């Protein structure tokens, strides 16, 4: 039951956008690790995680994101988040994710801030 996570990786000029579709749960681990592993040196320095506003995200999915952030933090990569509903923006702040990945209203804003 539920919708499998699908992540499309779009690469452009030193930046990658993860287009995240489907549920974000503990079952999303392989989708996130596959997407992360697909990054080459170019395009890996800055990553934007683009969610869909109606995504179902639970604590298992947040744990998967924290694992990804642990990896990107270790590799000194900059992360931006966009597309979240107001509720999940609140949840991400509550958990502390925003200390390691800023939330932006649009992909364009995220790109501007990460590359600026």
């Amino acid at each position, binding site marked *: 039951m539920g919708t499998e996570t699908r992540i499309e990786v779009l690469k452009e000029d030193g930046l990658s956008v993860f287009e995240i579709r489907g549920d974000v749960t503990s079952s999303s681990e392989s989708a996130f690790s596959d997407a992360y592993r697909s990054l080459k040196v170019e395009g890996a320095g800055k990553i934007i995680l683009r969610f869909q506003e109606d995504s179902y995200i639970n*604590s298992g999915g947040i744990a998967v994101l924290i694992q990804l*952030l642990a990896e990107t*933090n270790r590799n000194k990569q900059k992360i931006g988040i966009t597309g979240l509903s107001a*509720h999940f923006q609140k949840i991400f702040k509550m*958990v*502390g994710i925003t200390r390691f990945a800023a939330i932006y209203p649009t992909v364009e804003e995220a790109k501007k801030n990460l590359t600026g």
Partner: protein
Amino acid sequence: MDQHRELIRTNGEKSVEVHLPNMLGYERVAMECCASFARIAGFTSDRIEDLKTAVSEACLNAIEHGNKLRPEARVTVTLEIEDDCISVRVKDEGDGIKELPEEPDIVQKIERLQSPRRLGIFLIRNLVDHVEFNEPTNDGHVLKMVLRQPKPSLGVLGG
């Protein structure tokens, strides 16, 4: 009808009971049921989102930790509206929560000094107005939470 084969049952005018198979993913049924109930009761969309996440996390906890993913077990979610509150009881067939998880520390999680998981109880505590753990029943334990909607916006179930 055998109550264990029912999925959703109404108990009077202001109470609904949902029986879930003990499988990850079925927490979505309880979430949506709670959301519909809260919407009819006049709760605002932001409070409904809080309720959905809290109910989802309580059900996940019941399925994974309370019922230990046993397929023959059930999770029972009972919703009640009274005045400006919705109370939700999530019952599993387990032994209760032995030890509540420590407060999450994001820096420790990022540095891999604390498990990235175990966020469910933290989220529940921060999203609802009141929560009680480990209320024993004949055949399991109940997590009870109460969510309040600031007046004035109660709908047809609130009168």
